[in-house]
Structures are given as C-alpha cells and as structure tokens.
C-alpha cells in the first residue's frame, strides 16, 4: 500500500490533482476500524476465558464437590444459566454501562474499583520503565552507532546475547540483593508514600522491567541509527559542512526516534507482562499482585477484568503510537 501511495504522490504532482484529502483520512479510518475490531475481539476473548477453561467455572469457584444448589446459584450469579449469546450481551452491557467485568467473588467489590485502586502504581511503573528504557536505549544506541565496531559497540552488541536468557524475576532478585540489601540504595520493595516516595520505591522495579527491554531496543535502534548514519542524506549534510554533532542530534536521532517509538508500541504488551511479574518480585501492590491473588482465589471476574483492561490498554497505546508516528513522519502525515 505504501508503495502505491508513493507512486500516487508522484502522480498527483505531475497532474496537479489535489485529491489528497480522502486518502489521508482513509488511513485514520482504517486504523480506527482496526483498533475497534481488535478491541471487540479482545472482549470476545475475555468473555470466553471463563468458558474455554475445561470444566464448569462454578465448580472451579466453589470446588468440585459443591452442592448442586450452590452451583446453581453460582451459575445464576455468573449468568451461566442463560443462553450463550444472552450471556455475551449481558457481559457487553455490563462492560459498557459499568466499565467492568462484574463483581469480585471473594471481595464483593466491583472489579473496576479494584483495578482502579491498583492501576496507578502499575501505570506509573510502566511509564517509568518505558521512559528509562527509551532514554538508556537511545544513549547506548547512539554510543554504539557512532563508534561502530569499536570496543563500546561490541560490548553493547553483546548485551542482548547475554541478557536474552535472563529471566526477569532473576534480574530483579539480583538487583534487590546487591542494590537494596547490600548497598541500601533503594528500598527492597513495596511502594513509598507520596509521589516522591512512590517514584523512589519504584526505581528499582522500573530498572528491572527496563532491563529486559533495553537490549532489544538498543539492538534495533542501533541498526536503525547505522542505517540513518550511512544514508545519503547524512553524507550530503556532512558534505555540506554541517558539524557531526548537529547532524547527530538534529537529523539522525530524529530519524531514528520514529522506529524506536513504533518498536516500543509493539513491545508494550511484553512490557506490561514483565511488569506484572516484577511486581511480584518487589512486593508491589499493583495489578500484578491483584491478578495473582485473584488466581489463587479463582476470582474469575477479576482475572477477566485485568485481562480486558491490559489488552485494551495495549491496543489503545498501539493505536496512539500509530497515530503519533503518522504525525511525526511527514511522509505519512495526513491532513487531519
């Protein structure tokens, strides 16, 4: 499609046609349709989570040998006594009107409230980790790309090879032992009071989450930067006497930032998953710990709610990234 629109662009110039508006809206419409249909599929998938699991969910909640009456009432409570499409309509209705997946079986609170209570910490952690990952990656990638085949470059390139097989929890443990217990630079876990305390206590978990992503980010950013560095326009700018520093900051970084952003959009799901595990290691009461306690309590509405909110956030983020990258890139920028 891109190739075609490129020829299209040239054609427009040649013919002087200004039929630009429609296609520029078309991508947005297409992206919206895509995002909405993915969200719909996500809702369907979440709806079916409780139903694909082998066995009767009521029995799973109540135990295999619960009395028939108890199972009956749990069926009713979960709406399992209705025909499947009606269940789905109810599920969607509930989702639309209350924004949640029902009431927690164990805690008796709406899943939305529970998730909303825990979300800020997790979101902050994800944001910190992403920011950290981006900053460190850009610095490392710049160093590596500008010193291609140097010692630093080699070290940075070895990084992913070594860290790929490091389980995230293991990294977290090592960091806790060295940086918190031994050196006492960071709190061991938990979440501090106030914004400052929160930021401080989430530093180490954020480093851990970021750690898992920096190597891959650096790897592709470096490739990207090398490509840009060796591209014709950088040579042109150099030939035209622009200082290297200026080229690097004004042109190379800007051109590499776009793919980095897209990469982060692709990785956001993985990042959230890592965050859930890391929360466990650091004893952070976020979405992750809510998920784990819900799992041990077989509290299906919470599990569904978390799955739903995670997936929808991932989708929203990738949608935003798509829009942002379109906006930042004049080649694909539409006239909105």
């Amino acid at each position, binding site marked *: 499609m891109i190739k075609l629109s490129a020829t299209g662009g040239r054609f427009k110039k040649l013919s002087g046609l200004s039929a630009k508006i429609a296609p520029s809206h078309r991508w947005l419409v297409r992206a919206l349709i895509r995002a909405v249909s993915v969200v719909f599929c996500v809702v369907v998938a979440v709806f079916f989570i409780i139903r694909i699991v082998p066995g009767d969910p009521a029995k*799973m909640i*109540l*135990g*295999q*040998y*619960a009395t028939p009456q108890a199972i009956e009432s749990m069926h009713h409570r979960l709406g399992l006594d209705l025909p499947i499409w009606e269940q789905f309509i109810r599920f969607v209705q509930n989702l639309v009107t209350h924004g949640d997946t029902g009431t927690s079986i*164990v*805690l008796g*609170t709406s899943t939305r409230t*529970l998730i909303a*209570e*825990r979300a800020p910490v997790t979101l902050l952690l994800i944001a910190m980790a992403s920011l950290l990952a981006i900053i460190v990656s850009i610095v490392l990638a710049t160093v590596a790309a500008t010193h291609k085949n140097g010692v630093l470059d080699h070290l940075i390139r070895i990084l992913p090879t070594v860290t790929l097989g490091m389980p995230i929890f293991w990294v977290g*443990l090592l960091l*806790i*032992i060295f940086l*918190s*217990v031994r050196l*006492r630079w960071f*709190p*061991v*876990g*938990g979440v501090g009071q106030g914004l400052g305390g929160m930021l401080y206590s989430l530093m180490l978990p954020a480093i851990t989450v970021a750690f898992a992503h920096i190597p891959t980010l650096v790897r592709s950013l470096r490739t990207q930067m090398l490509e840009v560095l060796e591209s014709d326009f950088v040579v042109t700018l150099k030939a035209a006497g622009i200082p290297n520093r200026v080229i690097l900051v004004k042109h190379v970084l800007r051109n590499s930032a776009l793919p980095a952003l897209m990469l982060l959009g692709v990785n956001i799901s993985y990042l959230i998953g890592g965050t859930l595990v890391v929360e*466990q*290691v*650091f*004893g952070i*009461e976020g979405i992750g*710990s*809510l998920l*784990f*306690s819900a*799992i*041990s*309590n*077989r509290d299906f509405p919470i599990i569904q709610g978390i799955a739903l909110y995670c997936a929808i956030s991932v989708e929203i983020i990738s949608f935003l990234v798509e829009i942002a990258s379109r906006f930042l890139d004049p080649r694909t920028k539409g006239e909105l």
Partner: protein
Amino acid sequence: MSKVSAFLRKKPLIASLMILLLVLTAGCSGSNNASQNTGKNQVVKGGTFVYGRPAPVTSFDEYSEITSNNAFAIDKVFEPLVAFNKDGKIGNWLAKSHSISKDGLTYTFVLRDGLKFSNGTDVTAKDAAFSIQQHLIDKGPLAISAQVASIKAKDNKTLVITLKEPYTPFLSELANFSNGILPNNFGGVSEKQFFKKPIGTGPFVVQKWDPAGDLTFVKNKYYWQKGKPYIDKLVYKLIEDDSQAINQLKAGEVNAIESLPLENANELKQNAGTGVLTSGSWSIEQLFFNTLDKHFSDVHVRRALALAIDRPALTKALTFGYAEPANSLLPPAILYNTNKTIKALNFDTNAAKKELAKSAYPHGFSTNLLIASGNSTTAHLAQILQQAGKTIGININIESIELASFRDRFFAYNFSTMINGGQADYPDADSILAFQTDPKGFSKSYWTHYTNNNVTKLLYEGQKTPDGPARAKIYANLQQILADEVPYIPLYYPDVLIGVRSSVKGLVVLPNGSVRFDSVQITK
C-alpha cells in the same frame, strides 16, 4: 516459594484450615513477660510499627470471617472476657474475675472497671451478653461447642452463662478470636455495616483499610490498659512474597514480619539488625490418610508407611531446629500431650517391610499425595515422603494443586493421602482431638473418615471430665490408640516464628501465631 499462592503461605496448616483453627490473642502478661525484656529503662513511646503480612485483611466479621489473615487483625480490635498468655495459660482479660460453679454448669464473669469501647462508651455486661449470644446465632467457623442454656447480664458488670451440661473446654473456647466483645446491637447499625467500621475494646482502632492491601491502625485512646499501647500507629503491610518480606525486614522497611519460613530463621538470627521471636506452637504437621481409600483402609499399610518415615531426620532437614519431631497428636505446649511417653512407630525400614507384608498389598502399590502448592517446606516434605514410600515399594505421585482446589479436594474426601496441619484453636487438648477424631464432626476426623468407637467414647468423656489426672489418663489412652492405628502420621511441631528488627522490644508472640502489640516499643 510461589508468588502465586502467597495467600497465607507460611502457614500451610493454618492456611488449609484457617476457617476452623484459630485462637484469640490474649495473655495477662504485661510487658515484663515479653520475650525481650527492655529492663528498667524508660519506655519508648510513639512511632509507627510496620508489620509485614502475607495476606490482606478482608473482613472484621469476628463470627463468620475468622481466617488467620483476618483473625490476627480482629484480635487487635475486639477482645474476649478471658484470654491466654504466651504459654497458653487462660487468665482474665476484659473480666476482672471469673468463677465456675462446682457442677461446672454456671460461669460468672465480672467486668473490669472503666472499660470503654474505642468510641468512648462504657462496656457493660449487656454488651458482653449480646456478643456471645450473637455468636450462638451466627455460629461461623469457630462456633461455640458448649451447650449453652442461657446468657444473662445480672447487672452492669456481671455476666452469667449457664450450660446444659458440663463442658470443660468452655473457658478456653471463650478465649477464641470469635468471642470478642462488641457493643450491644452493634451500636445500632446493621451487622454488615458494623463490621465495616468495627468498634471494640482492643488496643487499636482501624484508620485506613484496603481489603486487598494494607491496613492501618491507630492507638485506641480509651484502651483500658493505661498508657498502652506505646506505639501510635500499627500498619499491616501486605507483602505476599516471603523472600521479599525477609529482604524488607533486613533493609529495615518493616519492623517485623509474620511469615518467616523455617529455613530463613537462622539467617535472620545471624544478621546484625534482625532477630527471630519464637513461641512453642499449638500446631502439628501431619500426613493424613483417607481411610476410605482402597489402600489406606488397611491399617497395616498405614503402619508400614509410618515405620518407613524417619521423622527426626526429616524434621531436622526441613525445620533447621525450629520444630520438634512429633510422636503424638498433641503439641507439647498443650496440656495432656504424651510426646515423650507415647509408644510411637519409629523409623525402621525392615519393620515397615514386614508390616506391609501383612497387608493386602505386600508388594506395594501406587498412590497419590495431595499437597497445596506454594509452600516450599511442604513441597520438600512431600518429596521426602515420596522417597520414604519408595523404600518399601509404595510409589507416591505428588499432586501439587493450588490452595483453593486443594481445600475443595480434601473437603470432598477426594484424596488418598495429603500433607496438612492441625492447630489448636484454644489451649485445651480437646481442640485438636475433637477436630481430628470425631467422625460425627464437621471434619469427620479431619477428612480421614477415621471411625473408632473407643476413640469417640474417650473423646466425649474427656469433654465432661474436669481437669486433673482422670482427664490426663483419658487423653493418654486416646493418643496411644491413634498412634497405633495411624489415621494420620504426626510429623513435627513447628514453632511459631516471627522475624523482627533488633530495635523492637516488647513484642509478644502467642502460640497461635498472633502477636500482641500493646507493649511494643521501637527503640533506636
């Protein structure tokens, strides 16, 4: 150490049975009885005490929601008439005095002077009568077993309870978590509402409470023990993961942790800033047999397996000196235990093989061992038992399932063998015995379905016999029968372990796992 089933992980025994087997904090001992004596130094007042716990407090309903995660918070708000101390001795608590009639049917309690609820209102005998009456109505997991005829407030200060028939454990029973005193008629609000904002006589008042997270108490300024508690604030911080909890303790982010795995106790002891408080416990780790099972209905099979297990060795390996090998059912901290005198089936592989030869399965068989996932000690114990079974030809497959389904499974007698624990609710031998031997009880001899008329008879006799040598004899006989017929193999009695910062003074650890904070001081 599963992060997943962090839910009450440290106490798998309690965890599995938490609905049933808990006890209330009490103990008449003041700060002078505390394990770490501050000496004559001045009391250090103020400060916030942070207590790391593996599970959140989900409810303050002392009748229906008595699980260990809730109970250890409920006992900070509600207090009973009588309570036990760290040695398990019953004494007066909210009652100034109590007396029992000769026939064992009438119990009279006189309340302390100047008792106030945390909202400032006075405590009267009416409140006490209401609280116990309500428990009789609500029942709940720790329902009163005594046959109560009447509960009357004789005057403002005096409460009289009459039983239909003598019941020796009654006083101990009253010391339960679930018999704390609360305002008459819940102070005029509905029961549900009341337990959302609980008002009691305890040393602490709920300030901020997240049913899935942390809980903050502030001190009760109307507390009847003048000047106490010394600390201003008590925070129950949710730390689901054990190693995380230990690390936080080491780093000084919490003052104490409730959940301390046995294997880490020595590590904390050796560490400069931390220490370990222990208390002989009321709990016992056991291997349970489903006596309805094809193989384990055969007493020889059960005996053979008991003989194949080296209890002292496994205790030593698994508990690092923080437990005693178990011979009898009753833990040593409970009166009438016969751990030293009983004739138990001690480790002897040859005898085990001979015993198995007498059974219907002389050449061994395959069976399943059900355990709750998420506890490393249990998992290791299971592997040791697996190995022991192998030596006499019994192939044991370990089935590790998470806590909720584990409970479902054994509640339905859907297991062959399982590892589980027993814990006394109150310091009376009857507590464990009734739960583990009464085939008519809720648990049907702890889901073993073990039935022996002699045992049942002895159990009922013991409940009616007043304390003394006669009762001791009954319980000795009972324990010996159990040791011979092995419906369950007692393995070891684990200590209650609480990890603390060295700066913490005056913390009282009770044998039921709860901790008293009213005399706690945080020194520099």
